[in-house]
């Protein structure tokens, strides 16, 4: 039963998380002072992943959130690297689309 529910909501989770990570990455690249906004997005990803039983994704998101909230923050390049790793992990949750022949 839970597996059915998870399968139903997985595409929505992946789409939402990608959107949040894209927004966070853009804020960092633009040099915006947006630590609280980025942390909030990471917190939401962690919560949604936890509910879905995606423990590794949740753990990665929580770790990045903690780094962002830490006093003194985190170096932008390190944070972008962490977000990229998280993005790759989330992308791996959905099977790649097969190439269209021809």
């Amino acid at each position, binding site marked *: 039963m839970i597996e059915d*529910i998870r399968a139903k*909501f997985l595409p929505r989770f992946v789409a939402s998380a990608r959107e949040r990570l894209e927004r966070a990455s853009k804020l960092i690249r633009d040099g915006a002072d947006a630590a609280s906004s980025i942390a909030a997005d990471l917190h*939401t990803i*962690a*919560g949604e992943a936890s*509910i*879905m*039983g995606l*423990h590794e994704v*949740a753990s990665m998101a929580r770790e990045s959130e903690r780094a962002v909230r830490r006093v003194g923050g985190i170096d932008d390049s390190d944070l972008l690297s962490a977000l990229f790793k998280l993005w790759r992990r989330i992308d791996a949750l959905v099977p790649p689309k097969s190439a269209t022949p021809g």
Partner: protein
Amino acid sequence: MASRRKQILIVDDSALVLDMMRAALDAAGYDVLVANDLTQLEEHRQRHRPDLVLMDVQMPEAFGDDVAMVLRAAREVEAPIYLLSTLDEGELRRRAADAEIDGFISKQMGAEAIVSRVREIIGASGERG
């Protein structure tokens, strides 16, 4: 006399969390009310008498434990109130104790274990008087 399904009110700013928990708890036989913000929480509070309230902590408008503390202190909700969050258990325990509410459930358990925990707290649905 037919028994009524027990009712759970979930407050969370993530629509995905609300929809997934509603699906999981509904499948377990519970009626589920969801509130995406404090306005919806207030509407449900005035119209319903849930058997359990699950409250997220970090929301845009307020901290859930602060909201829960006010509801409990003003006796506006008689049902057990539990924090439902991905924060570490130590912090959740402290926040629940400071707010003088009934406890906490970690989102880190996943939906299935959360449903089991709900069943421990209020019993299986269909047992309401």
